[in-house]
């Protein structure tokens, strides 16, 4: 067997090993890189930045553990930004798993880093409700039809920041952080467009390319995958240097991400070289046998 044939028929587990090391080594070495916000990310940052104090931000946690590494850094950065700007944060979830993630984010970011923020006045956890796009359709006209209590069982009208909320149109911006269906797309279709409310999205890298057609007319900005999260973290650090000392998992993860991308590109190149060598050899053999004559 020739060298190229050996390479072409390499055991898949060898490739797995390479990918594993491409991720493990940079994680161990804490290799990270700097980022610059692209226009599609900067648009969200600028929107949050332009909102006056006390503006109402609806944040929908539409993801689960499978996409936490991509979406959670976005959530952390956005929460920090909103808290810093003294915006009122309304957290809800179209995914059941989002309910747990709201609780975790509340503890890790708001309660830990902004202890002066008051629950029910500065932020509220509305929790999960079933129904996907059906839920968005209901809250488009009447928020309190489905949300009769907050996540901890307080009557909705007893939550101070819910008093002047009627429906989706009561919010200044909707931030949907989604990992699939229902997610950013459903917020644009069933919430943003019919309600004429600006929607900004954070999506997994898998679904981000599908959302580009909505930008900028129907979607004011988009954070696509870990790259989008890292860019937002960078924009936040640039605008508020004090956040440099806080955790920034998006930027940290770009190191291993870069190495793994390079390894995959190398694999594709090697795969193609073996393919062309094999094709050439096959052509030569056919020529010798007179098939091409």
């Amino acid at each position, binding site marked *: 067997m020739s060298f190229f044939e050996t390479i072409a028929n390499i055991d898949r587990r060898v490739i797995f090993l390479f990918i594993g090391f491409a991720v493990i080594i940079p994680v161990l070495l804490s290799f990270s890189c700097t980022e610059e916000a692209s226009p599609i990310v900067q648009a969200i940052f600028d929107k949050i930045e332009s909102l006056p104090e006390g503006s109402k931000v609806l944040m929908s946690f539409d993801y689960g553990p499978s996409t936490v590494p991509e979406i959670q850094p976005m959530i952390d950065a956005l929460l920090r930004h909103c808290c810093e700007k003294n915006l009122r944060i309304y957290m809800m979830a179209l995914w059941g798993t989002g309910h747990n993630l709201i609780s975790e984010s509340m503890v890790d970011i708001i309660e830990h880093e902004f202890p002066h923020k008051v629950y029910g006045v500065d932020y509220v956890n509305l929790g999960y409700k079933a129904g996907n796009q059906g839920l968005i359709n209901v809250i488009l006209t009447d928020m309190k039809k489905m949300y009769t209590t907050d996540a901890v*069982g307080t009557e909705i009208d007893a939550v101070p920041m819910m008093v002047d909320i009627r429906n989706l149109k009561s919010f200044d911006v909707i931030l949907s952080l989604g990992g699939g269906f229902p997610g950013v797309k459903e917020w644009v279709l069933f919430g943003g467009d019919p309600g004429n409310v600006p929607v900004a999205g954070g999506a997994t890298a898998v679904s981000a390319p599908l959302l580009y057609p909505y930008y900028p007319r129907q979607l004011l900005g988009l954070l696509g995958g870990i790259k989008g999260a890292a860019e937002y973290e960078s924009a936040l650090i640039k605008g508020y240097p004090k956040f440099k000392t806080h955790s920034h998992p998006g930027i940290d993860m770009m190191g291993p991400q870069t190495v793994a991308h390079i390894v995959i590109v190398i694999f594709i190149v090697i795969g193609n070289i073996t393919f062309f060598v094999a094709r050439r050899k096959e052509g030569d053999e056919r020529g010798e046998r007179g098939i091409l004559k």
Partner: protein
Amino acid sequence: MRKDLVWLFVGVLFFGLLYILNWGVKVISTDLLVWVGAFLTLAILSFLYQDNPFYKFAEHLFVGVSAAYWMCMGFWNTLVPNLIAKIHPPIVKGVLPAIAEKPPEYWYIIPAILGIMLLMRLSPKAPWISRWALAFIVGTTTGLNLVRYLRSDFVGQIKSTLIPVIVLQDGSLTIGGSFSNIVVVLGVLCGLIYFFFSKEHKGMFGVASRVGIYILMITFGASFGYTVMARISLLVGRMRFLLGDWLQFVQ
């Protein structure tokens, strides 16, 4: 099967021993729950070598746990406050006292009946009853989707494509902007032509269809690149858990 169980037993025993040994030296995490998470993570990753009892165990556990997870979430967050508390508020006094004094809304008996009808799918004698509830679900979904897709994905997208192909900035032509807009307009048109199968793709129509294929290939290439990015991110996330939370090699 017996061999599988022996392997599983040995694996769990080995992990348990490691945990106990670690208690003496406290080199890595001593949190038992973190160890459970690490064991399950490694059990799933073991599939990379080949199918094995650890992977099967983790896979089956996942199915059971996730089904119960969604049930509980739906029960406490939607069924109790939005159905039970609406039909008979006093019944939720022990769990949701804040809304137990509200007046009942008997209209909510309708979704309750439809919901029970849906559960009849499990009945061996009359599963057809579930069709009524299913029809309601299908009717709602189609009714909602028809208008919203028409507005945002059809009219909305056409509207966003009707853009000037000659872009002027401060009175002078910008080549980059104009070129991009031409690509957008032609790309959408040619992409749609490629999907139009009622006419043979020949002549000018065939050329446009060909351009459409190229545009779609770039689209799929971009999607592939982003998919790789997504999958690697998830792996990095798991490795950060194993190397950080569990082994505590990194902060």
